[in-house]
């Protein structure tokens, strides 16, 4: 038997991005004994990479904004697939959560009268993103991190959870390993909050880092929690395409929010040809109108005309780019051109988009104040996740909570840019609170079953036992390529079935990879352990995508290119039944009349 350390805590938070930090702050503030674990060092989670901003109807720039408009935009952007109550809570609470960050020392960019400045983003009717240049995520994570370290919470860096445990129907603990020593840690917890972020690393071309292997989604499903909306995956329209080694790295939507335009190789602003019926009234009908909008907004005025089509929602823009490239109107390296150089002054570009400027000069030898960027779609954000209760953030398993990108509901079929950072704060806090309330009611917890722990450790160590079997890196790459080919932006029945068959084979191979070296900081071993999650979440995406025979938001089927009104009435759940993954249609509840009028007023 292998030794392991045991830690007892009330609330275990898995993940230290915005959601995890905010959940831990709340849990500790509620007097709970709180532990936080994360795969990387503190302050390095994905949230740090967020650029554009956090959406909240503060109405500092355009007084016409309100939670009602934010709610409507979120629902419309989500193609009405959102959890209505979550969208309502989010729109109402986001401003307070942003102001609270200011109370904790965050320094957002300012309006001329000294309030928080807000910028335009796709799908938001008014300038709504509180931001700090193009490094908003850094500001957010640093503020939360510096708040948390002065609270009574235990922080475990570079400590990765590999298994969750359940006893008598409720969650009781988690097994983790530390990267630096390769030792195992058992956390016995009365409640667990999953804040593990997304799963972009199931794809080769992605804006996400190695951490994003869908661990939380997969771990929750393994102990029987339902997942929801897994077919809805956001491909961000503007990732870098060249050089190859940075293919997928994000180019913030802030570029378009600040006036950047998309062009094909004929120099046409092709998006005018792709405006969906539902958005016809919100978008400029001509280039002149779009140019006037930018001119007004840059001058700090309220826009009197409609916004450019570049600010359509991401699903629409990504598909338009794909189509331009397929029809031969793409850029030399298989993208399209994103041009801000001809739209804004060099000094404005450097001030508002400093890290984009830096990123292109350094990585691509492109000066974005002089030349256009080449961009194309990149796997970016999963709308689906652990199904949670909108008020408490509890999953379908008692004691297991989820928040942030790992949870489902707020974003429906497509997330609006900026809604994630605000989501992390609003529902991170609610999850911390929900977990604390749960612990108060359900104390003490049952103990973890020791046999489960030993089995989990044995599984983790099994990769060392085989010699010279398959290499985990190569297998990971094969799965990623397959997902890009068969479960990408445009999907078909036949391809999805092939993907599911391929995943069965990958699953068998993933169990048999071998790793060399020891347990201390061994990345090959880490990849081997993550493969299980990649396979499982890939399967959940493919299964849900095959079931939804229509195109909606972040899910597009070339064999079913239109909306299906019947499918508008259901969300898809991923369940566990006899150890297998199952997809089930769940009817949506009717929207309360007062919210329905809000959405229909548009």
């Amino acid at each position: 038997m292998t030794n392991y350390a045991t830690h007892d805590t009330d609330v275990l938070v898995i993940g230290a991005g915005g959601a995890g930090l905010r959940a831990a702050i709340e849990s500790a503030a509620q007097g709970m004994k709180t532990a936080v674990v994360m795969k990387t060092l503190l302050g390095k989670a994905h949230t740090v990479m967020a650029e554009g901003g956090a959406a909240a109807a503060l109405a500092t720039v355009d007084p016409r904004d309100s939670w009602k408009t934010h709610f409507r935009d979120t629902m419309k952007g989500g193609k009405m697939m959102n959890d209505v109550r979550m969208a309502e809570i989010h729109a109402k609470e986001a401003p307070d959560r942003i102001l609270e960050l200011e109370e904790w020392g965050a320094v957002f960019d300012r309006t001329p009268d000294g309030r928080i400045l807000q910028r335009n983003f796709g799908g938001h009717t008014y300038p709504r993103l509180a931001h700090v240049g193009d490094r908003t995520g850094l500001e957010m994570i640093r503020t939360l991190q510096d708040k948390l370290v002065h609270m009574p919470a235990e922080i475990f860096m570079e400590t990765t959870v590999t298994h969750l445990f359940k006893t008598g129907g409720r969650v009781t603990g988690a097994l983790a390993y530390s990267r630096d020593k390769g030792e195992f840690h058992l956390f016995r917890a009365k409640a667990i909050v999953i804040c593990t972020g997304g799963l972009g690393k199931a794809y080769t071309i992605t804006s996400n880092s190695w951490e994003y292997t869908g661990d939380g989604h997969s771990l929750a499903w393994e102990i029987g929690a339902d997942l929801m909306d897994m077919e809805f995956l956001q491909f961000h329209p503007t990732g870098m395409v060249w050089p190859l080694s940075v293919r997928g790295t994000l180019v913030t939507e802030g570029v378009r929010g600040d006036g950047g335009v998309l062009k094909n190789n004929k120099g046409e602003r092709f998006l005018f040809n792709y405006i969906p019926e539902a958005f016809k009234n919100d978008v400029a009908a001509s280039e002149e109108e779009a140019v006037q909008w930018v001119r007004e907004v840059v001058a700090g005025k309220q826009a009197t005309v409609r916004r450019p089509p570049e600010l359509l929602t991401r699903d629409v823009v990504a598909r338009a780019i794909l189509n331009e490239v397929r029809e031969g109107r793409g850029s030399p390296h298989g993208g399209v051109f994103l041009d801000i150089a001809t739209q804004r002054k060099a000094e404005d570009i450097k001030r508002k988009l400093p890290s984009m400027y830096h990123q292109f000069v350094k990585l691509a030898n492109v000066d974005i104040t002089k030349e256009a960027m080449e961009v194309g779609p990149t796997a970016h954000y999963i709308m689906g996740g652990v199904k949670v209760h909108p008020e408490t953030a509890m999953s379908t398993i008692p004691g297991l909570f989820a928040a942030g990108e790992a949870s489902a509901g707020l974003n429906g079929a497509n997330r609006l840019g900026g809604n994630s950072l605000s989501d992390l704060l609003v529902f991170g806090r609610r999850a911390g609170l929900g977990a604390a309330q749960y612990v108060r009611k359900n104390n003490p917890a049952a103990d973890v079953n020791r046999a489960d722990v030993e089995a989990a450790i044995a599984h983790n160590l099994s990769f060392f036992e085989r010699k010279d079997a398959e290499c985990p890196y190569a297998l990971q790459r094969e799965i990623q390529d397959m997902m890009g080919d068969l479960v990408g932006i445009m999907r078909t029945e036949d391809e999805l079935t092939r993907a599911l068959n391929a995943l069965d084979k990958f699953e068998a191979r993933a169990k048999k990879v071998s790793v060399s070296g020891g347990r201390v900081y061994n990345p090959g071993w880490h990849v081997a352990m993550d493969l299980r999650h990649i396979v499982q979440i890939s399967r959940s995406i493919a299964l849900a995508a095959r079931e939804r025979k229509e195109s909606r938001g972040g899910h597009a089927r070339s064999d079913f290119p239109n909306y299906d009104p019947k499918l508008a009435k259901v969300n898809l759940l991923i369940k566990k039944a006899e150890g297998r993954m199952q997809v089930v249609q769940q009817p949506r509840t009717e929207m309360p009349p007062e919210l329905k009028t809000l959405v229909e007023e548009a």
Partner: protein
Amino acid sequence: MSNKMHLKVFRGDNSGGELRDYQVEVDEGMVVLDVVHRLQATQAPDLSCRWNCKAGKCGSCSAEVNGKPRLMCMMRMDLFKPDEIITIQPLQAFPIVRDLVTDVSWNFEVNKKIPPFKPKPKNPDGTWRMMQYEVDRVQEFRKCLECYLCQNVCHVLRNHGKHDVFFGPRFMVRLAGLEMHPLDDADRVKLMREAAGIGYCNITKCCTEVCPEDIRITDNAIIPLKERVADRYYDPLAMLFRAIRGKNR
């Protein structure tokens, strides 16, 4: 376009190790971190390194490349001549965990010693106002990625190992970000002089030179903080003045 390049990479831990030779295929546009990844995927699956964003935003991938402290994800391979030997080593100011990974936990302990932001009371309308020109300098400090490249080159830490009496440039930047925050109401001058050991800095500016965020650590953070300490401790008149007018003038 691709060609083979010669790399020497540190393999080992705090008890010792060696620079091991590798020949790696390098494609157009690759950065040093890509090469390390290629090594992992093909020749050295257990080679340890930290990284996350691969875009110069998280400060995880710090290392010394040909003796220069750099973020590996922002250093292009075409900076080197095709026949140049490229040496990659871990940061030198911290204990080595394994290969390119160092134990930077000391930095997190130091951070905890800095009293957190303490806001002034709000305006009657329940908000605060801050002007952009008032926050510009604080925003410069808040760009810090915590890559610790500055800590790595500061001779006070690197050569003299004064980790127990000097917080290092990163935390001078953090202190400056708090002290110059227009809404902050805490007083950290005593801490700067004593526990933080600001007097150990003799303004060599090596930290500023390596900062990937171009934070002017010495000129904009350390020197103004030194002035605050000097005002308080060596000038009774200034002290009196300050007591009357409040710290943020």
